[in-house]
């Protein structure tokens, strides 16, 4: 930790400390009259690395938060966030790892219908958003995660999603049909299986 922070460092520190929302480097710079804050942010990150407060970047936006290892000291007085149902947890994971996805694609993976309320809960939490429509027949709505999702789960970016690289490498993020075609030498794709479990119910 430097003995004496420079003026810009102090200003960035104060700005982020006072902010009610995470801020992007651009927003901080704008607030501080256009100064280049990239190096300063990196510096501050280091400065606080060993303290009880950390400066973190989540989805390109920066904020201060308490060090994770102190959770046990702080938790008791704080209300825990509401627990997510299993359906909502799975839907969130599917959206995060596959985004953007349609409801039909979520259902294809889960093998069951997704109750209307499930996605609503995730929207209300501010973790997912409607990301447009897929340009296929029926033009289904597609969903993606939000910057708040990254903030809440402590992810710098979607690349930080636990195990996403391994899952991608193993082909587990590819649709079944695609993986199947790869495994069987590109034959399949349109087999009309008497599969009762909803794999083909594309929207």
């Amino acid at each position, binding site marked *: 930790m430097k003995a004496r922070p420079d003026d810009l460092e102090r200003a960035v520190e104060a700005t982020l400390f006072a902010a009610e929302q995470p801020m992007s480097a651009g927003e901080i710079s704008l607030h501080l009259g256009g100064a280049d804050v990239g190096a300063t942010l990196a510096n501050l990150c280091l400065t606080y690395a060993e303290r009880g407060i950390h400066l973190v970047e989540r989805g390109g936006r920066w904020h201060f938060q308490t060090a*994770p290892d102190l959770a046990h000291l702080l938790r008791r007085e704080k209300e825990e966030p509401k627990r997510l149902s299993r359906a909502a947890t*799975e839907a969130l994971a599917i959206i995060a790892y596959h985004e953007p996805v349609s409801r039909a694609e979520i259902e294809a993976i889960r093998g069951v219908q997704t109750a209307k309320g499930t996605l609503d809960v995730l929207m209300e939490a501010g973790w997912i958003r409607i990301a447009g429509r897929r340009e296929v027949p029926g033009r289904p709505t597609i969903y993606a995660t939000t910057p708040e999702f990254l903030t809440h789960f402590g992810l710098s970016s979607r690349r930080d999603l636990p195990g996403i690289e391994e899952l991608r490498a193993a082909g587990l993020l590819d649709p079944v049909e695609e993986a199947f075609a790869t495994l069987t030498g590109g034959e399949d794709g349109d087999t009309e*299986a008497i599969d009762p479990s909803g794999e083909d119910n594309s929207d």
Partner: protein
Amino acid sequence: MVDAASPVLFEGDEAWDGVGAAPAGDAALYLELDGWEGPLDLLLELARRQKVDLRTISILDLVGQYLDYIERAEALKLEVAADYLVMAAWLAYLKSMLLLPRDPEVQPSPEELALKLQLRLQRLGAMREAGARLMGRDRTGRDVFLRGAPEGLRVDRKALWKCDVFSLIQAYGAIKLRSQPVVHMVRERAVVTLDAALARVSQMLGIAIEWTDLRAFLPAEADPQLRKSAMASSFLAALELAKQGRAELAQEQAFGPLLLRAASGVGKAA
């Protein structure tokens, strides 16, 4: 893959924990039929009980377990939802195909169907694990905390008013235009008044014994505007004279020439 019974992984889901933690293979498990999220979910749980990687799972064993499970649930007279039964029928079909000698005519082959089922289980398993790992992260408001009472940043927007001198004088001109009292001037035009026409027609009528076209009474004027005016007032004059009994009017057909002569009585009297 993570052991299904791991409580950390699926914390917060009573039904599922209950199932996962149930004593292996027994009534408790069957009673939980409502707890499954569909046949695929049940299949995944049964697969996990094989405690092997989903990539090396024996689909045949799995099918056997599933059918067994449904049978026993029915034996216990539990209500088994339709989609579980549909899956059971499909799995029974798959199982018989897998066991019978391979018929090359049947497409897709049972091995391919089994592979697809396995791929689907892998995907659901992967996402279930990903969800659990996501929930287990240092979450804001549970593990890490934001500043309790941030001062907040406020940006007061101040208008920087813009106007130029041309807009200013243009505005002044507009006000002057608006507030100027409006005066309507009627341009003076040459007309033949009714009085003039009356005097002229009655004078000329004195010498017209025969029917005469009204137009003959008009002054010889080049100006078509004035001629129109003369026509209109002369017509009114003719009507007025007829009303007074000093003239007679006739018209042989609609829009035909209007004929005029002195009233016979008057003519004799004069």
